[in-house]
């Protein structure tokens, strides 16, 4: 398992932040910094890719809430790719994260939802 914080890539100019492995209290502070830095003012939104996330505790959940609030305040969209992994789905449901986080099954869907915000986008 890689212990670095956030794996950031760009797809068609849209930042995609992948959280790999266990997101817990030890990694949450580093991940928070990585996520907040991932989005610039010019971006229309961020894709949060949780497909390779194997563990997500309340410290990680709090980071996602903070990220969602920041993006919302800047009129930017946060689209998550949520895996078919019981523990992650269960956590998102229990803390009611889905109320503020738009979630998709695939990366393409998540990208498309942000693409639509771009001027001249599909």
């Amino acid at each position, binding site marked *: 398992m890689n212990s*670095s914080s956030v794996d950031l890539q760009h797809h068609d100019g849209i930042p995609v932040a992948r959280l790999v492995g266990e997101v817990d*209290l030890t990694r949450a502070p580093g991940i928070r910094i990585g996520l907040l830095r991932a989005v610039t003012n010019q971006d229309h939104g961020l894709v949060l890719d949780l497909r390779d996330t194997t563990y997500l*505790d309340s410290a990680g959940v709090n980071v996602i809430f903070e990220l969602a609030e920041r993006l919302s305040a800047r009129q930017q969209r946060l689209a998550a790719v949520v895996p078919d992994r019981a523990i992650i789905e269960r956590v998102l449901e229990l*803390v009611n994260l889905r109320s503020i986080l738009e979630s998709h099954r695939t990366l393409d869907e998540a990208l498309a939802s942000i693409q639509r915000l771009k001027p001249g986008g599909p």
Partner: protein
Amino acid sequence: MARDSASQLRDLQRVTDAALSSLPLNQLLDTLLERVRQILGVDTVAILLLEEDGRTLAARAAKGLEEEVERGVRIPVGGGFAGRVAAERGPVQITDVDHADILNPLLREKGLQSLLGVPLLTEERLIGVLHVGALTTRAFSSDEVDLLQRAADRAALAIGARLYERQRGLAEEMQRSLFPRPLPEFPGVSLAARYWPAASAPLGGDWYDAFLLPTGSLGLVMGDVVGRGFRAAALMAQLRSALRAYAFDGTEPWELMTKLNVLLRRIDPGGSATLLYLVFDSEAEEVHMASAGHLPPLLRRGSEATFVELPRAVPLGVIANPVYDDLVLEAHPPMELVLYTDGLMERAGEALEEGFERLRVAGSPDGSDPEELADRLVGALLPEGAANDDAAVLVMAIHPLGEELEVTMAAEPESAPLLRRILRRWLREHGASPDEVEELTLACGEACANAIEHAYPPEARSFLVGAHVENGDIVMRVQDWGQWRPPRGAHRGKGMTLMEGLTDSVAIEGGEEGTTVTLRRRPQEATAA
């Protein structure tokens, strides 16, 4: 100056006087120089010592021209009079000083006419220069040259011993500071380590290390840098830090070897080291290890001891692109692994095979206390301590978790990943389904996060996690010695939500002495039965 042989002998005794050796170095040099000045009837006596760069002489003690020391005179080897003595490593005499030869302005100002200098040597190594000067023109006799050389030898002996002592003290302290103390605590594992510096050399290149990885696994290291002295120790220190940095990034053992090989060849071309690195994953019950030409660990299961068959691989630094492979070893407890360096088993005139056999036999008897095992190995293999090579041993014993889990952890965030690995394994072994393992691990993780967050030193540096099965329920208990704090801030309280959502019941008992959180859940399997 005509002197009889009796007075010559007396003079000689005055500079070789054994009583001098009981004096502190400064006093010894002072006394010795004053005696030399009186015996030879000269106007100045000075000792200059070679600096660590090996190219400069600096005034250390003087009589007659004491200002020399205070002004911090420095002379390059090969330049000036003292520099010439150092370069020639033998007596040099000038009876009619040409001022062009004299770099030291003090010597010129005083108008010295004659100079005699001899080298300070310890074991053939130049450490400085002793010289005398007279304001008159005079030739020094061979007896006088001999006497000065004896005084120089006496001074060299004292200075050399002092330097060696200081070097050895520093060296041992540095080496000791690089070993992990205390060894990390890891549930279900106990560790023991031993290190002996070689009697003959102050600094060896052996090192061991043990650390918790961010993933919650345990990393163990045994290495041996080729060579000795400061260069070997400095390389060892650099490799140790680099290894930890790579390891903390989650680098696999084989890849870590590859990276260290590149690094070693850059920082010390020509240097080399053998190295063994292993990662114990307590959840998967596996050990992943890679070796760079290091001796194979001894593996004990019960009273059977065998050597792990490692893929062949060259030591670090030897070639540009070596191939390293990981060996994966099943690590079901109880078992012990013994890591060591060759200093443990090498004996003069003995084949390596005999050393292996002695180690195997000494490691065979049953008993899983690593301290006892380490002592037994050392008693059998190094009955008289380490002789010519330093030696290190690191023993890891893996114990079964047991029916009732009870582990004490440091109240640090780093404990969390480690605890999850232990918990998952215990839950799996006690009837929880894969989903239940994950959910209960998360619920317990939240209780632990609370304990870690609310631990205030010094009384609350640790917390306890217990788990057992009670009437078919899995019961997990997290106990700390801090105060339970109600959740604060907009996003707080999610930990509680998760604990409640993922278990059948959450009970929190708080008191003056700490807080205990008890989580219960009946596994599906048990419900169905």
